[in-house]
């Protein structure tokens, strides 16, 4: 490895590369902050720019978009309670309450620092442990992927609000919605009700716009007229994070980064799953559980560090085995291949300088993301001081344009509106929307791996306990469920105690 570092550094540290990294980071951060404009869409739209570039500046530009996109989604989640990208939904749960409490800049700063830490952590994992981690990941197969999904579904309990049962119903609804469209195993269409536009299923980003962004606009109906005026606390916000808070951030950030790397190496999973796993874990481990959902600094750090730690980790199977972990990375693989680079372990010896330049470049991308983020944070924070009269229609216009951009058709805008109405009705029934999102994110992967595993085993469920990795995941699931039950019992006891005290 060391013999490649010097030539790789020579290839990487050029003015051209640094310029393209910065352009990519800026575009990625701004794009992802707009609801509906996902990182994949951004990469697709800007990919032609890389055609005239050689492999390294092209990859640096795309990595800039990819990493900054991981952070950018949190901006709108914190500012307007609308995740810019699906993976920022977990950040929203605490980011927006913290912003509402007059600490917008602090929330944005925590998201930025945690994202940068997660990004650099995973870049180092890629640099030093890439091939070893890839070999481990290669041992995980269909039953293990299914167990990861089941583990993911245990998170529902933590995000169900007042009633776990209502959360489970909401999650079932999300999982059912993910079944709409072409059956991933047989290609027959399902639940399309004669609507041909539903063949491809529903895009999570479009559903997200309806479930969170547009319904937030409709909820303006619940606001009192004085809510339109600026909150004086927001004007005084100086973005200070106390020493005690910094201390509290260490554990969830580290844990989130580790979870992000672990999730990222599994193809098919991505930043959304990682951020929810990490958020749930941080909540279970925190001494301040009551703060989660009400502006917990730990919640923001856990979600953001995890979703950015995925960036480097997804590159591990990509560069070492040629397996793209998610849609954005698949496009990067394409960009590498059109430059004549066919990823795989052999490329580490034949084109080691380029491979290591890309890996070192990822660290550089995260450093520039931090620098740009520091400049952009005060500007982003100003959004909360824009009067509601102006901000509300602008959000709607972005939402409509974003929903249309996903597949460039009007149908998606209708879908977003339908989800907005659905979310409003669910709100009236005190049904939490987050489990629906979890169902949407995990649905296809859960079902496909469940069915494929049973197909491989000829219908025998023993396949789900057939490897040591399956048992590890079963252990984690039992642990997660156990922790949830323990917390529930504790909460009930505390409630009963407070009632008896009042009496």
């Amino acid at each position, binding site marked *: 490895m060391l013999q490649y570092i010097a030539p790789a550094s020579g290839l990487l540290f050029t003015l051209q590369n640094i310029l393209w990294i910065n352009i990519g980071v800026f575009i990625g951060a701004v794009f992802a902050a707009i609801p509906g404009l996902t990182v994949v869409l951004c990469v697709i739209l800007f990919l032609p720019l890389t055609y005239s570039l050689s492999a390294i500046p092209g990859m640096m530009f795309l990595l800039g978009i990819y990493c900054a996109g991981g952070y950018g989604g949190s901006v709108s989640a914190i500012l307007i309670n609308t995740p810019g990208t699906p993976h920022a939904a977990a950040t929203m749960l605490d980011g927006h309450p913290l912003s509402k409490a007059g600490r917008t800049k602090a929330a944005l700063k925590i998201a930025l620092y945690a994202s940068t830490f997660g990004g650099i952590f995973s870049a180092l994992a890629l640099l030093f442990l890439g091939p070893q981690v890839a070999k481990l990941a290669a041992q995980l197969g269909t039953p293990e992927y299914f167990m990861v999904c089941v583990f993911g579904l245990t998170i529902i309990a933590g995000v169900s609000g007042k009633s776990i049962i209502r959360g489970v119903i909401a999650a*079932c609804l999300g999982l059912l919605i993910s079944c709409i469209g072409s059956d991933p195993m047989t290609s027959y269409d399902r639940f399309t009700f004669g609507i041909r536009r539903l063949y491809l299923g529903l895009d999570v980003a479009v559903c997200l716009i309806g479930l969170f962004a547009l319904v937030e606009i409709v909820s*303006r109906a619940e606001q009192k007229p004085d809510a339109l005026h600026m909150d004086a606390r927001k004007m005084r916000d100086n973005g200070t994070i106390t020493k005690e808070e910094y201390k509290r951030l260490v554990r969830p950030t580290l844990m989130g980064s580790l979870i992000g790397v672990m999730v990222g190496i599994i193809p098919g999973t991505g930043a959304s799953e990682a951020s929810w796993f990490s958020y749930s874990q941080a909540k279970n481990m925190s001494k301040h559980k009551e703060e989660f959902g009400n502006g917990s600094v730990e919640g923001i750090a856990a979600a953001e560090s995890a979703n950015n730690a995925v960036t480097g980790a997804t590159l591990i199977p990509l560069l070492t085995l040629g397996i793209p972990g998610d849609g954005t990375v698949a496009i990067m693989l394409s960009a590498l291949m059109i430059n004549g680079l066919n990823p795989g372990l052999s490329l580490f010896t034949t084109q080691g300088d380029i491979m290591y330049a890309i890996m070192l470049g990822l660290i550089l991308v995260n450093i520039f993301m931090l620098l740009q983020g520091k400049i952009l944070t005060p500007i982003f924070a100003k959004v909360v001081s824009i009067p509601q009269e102006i901000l509300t229609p602008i959000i709607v216009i972005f939402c409509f344009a974003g929903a249309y951009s996903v597949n460039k058709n009007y149908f998606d805008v209708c879908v977003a509106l339908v989800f907005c109405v659905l979310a409003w009705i669910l709100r009236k*029934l*005190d049904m939490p929307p987050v489990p629906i999102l979890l169902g949407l994110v995990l649905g296809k992967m859960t079902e496909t791996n469940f069915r494929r595993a049973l197909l491989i085993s000829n219908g025998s469920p023993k396949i789900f306990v057939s490897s040591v990795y399956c048992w590890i995941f079963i252990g984690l699931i039992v642990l997660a469920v156990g922790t949830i039950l323990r917390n529930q019992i504790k909460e009930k006891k505390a409630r009963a105690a407070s009632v008896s005290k009042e009496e």
Partner: protein
Amino acid sequence: MMDKIYVRLDALGEKLKTKECRIPVNLAVGVVFFLFSAVILLTMPQQVAISEKDVVNGRAFPKLLMGVMMFCCVLLAAKDIYKLVKKQPIEWKTLNLLVEIKALVILGILLITYVLWRASGYFVLGAVFCALAFLIYFRCKKPSYYAITVGMAVGIWAVFRFLLNVRL
């Protein structure tokens, strides 16, 4: 003229503010989603084609989900019914008529924005309507706000149309 309309609307709002209805949350969720899952199960044979060769066919997973949903619904409803019989307090949700009508107005703005865009083929038209409609909804009287918001609406359209090449 606008002031007169606002006065009338305020008077109407005062009346509507007092009109509320309460729904037993768990019972309502239980009934609504039980019926929903029953409908899905009933329509499944028409909606999901399967092949006899499949080890686990395309209906298995949705059936499992609807089974879980039905079970949860029965649990929720039974819990509330038991409490009602035992005359224990249950969870209620209060709906305020004024809030719901305001929500319908906002939904109406969203819908008209879409219809204008769809019918004319010009996103910018829907965007300008949306900007103006919300400013009127919020009873904004500052001309500068109107100029800024409409300008932003046009600007967003321009960025998507020309810079990102999304043919809005």
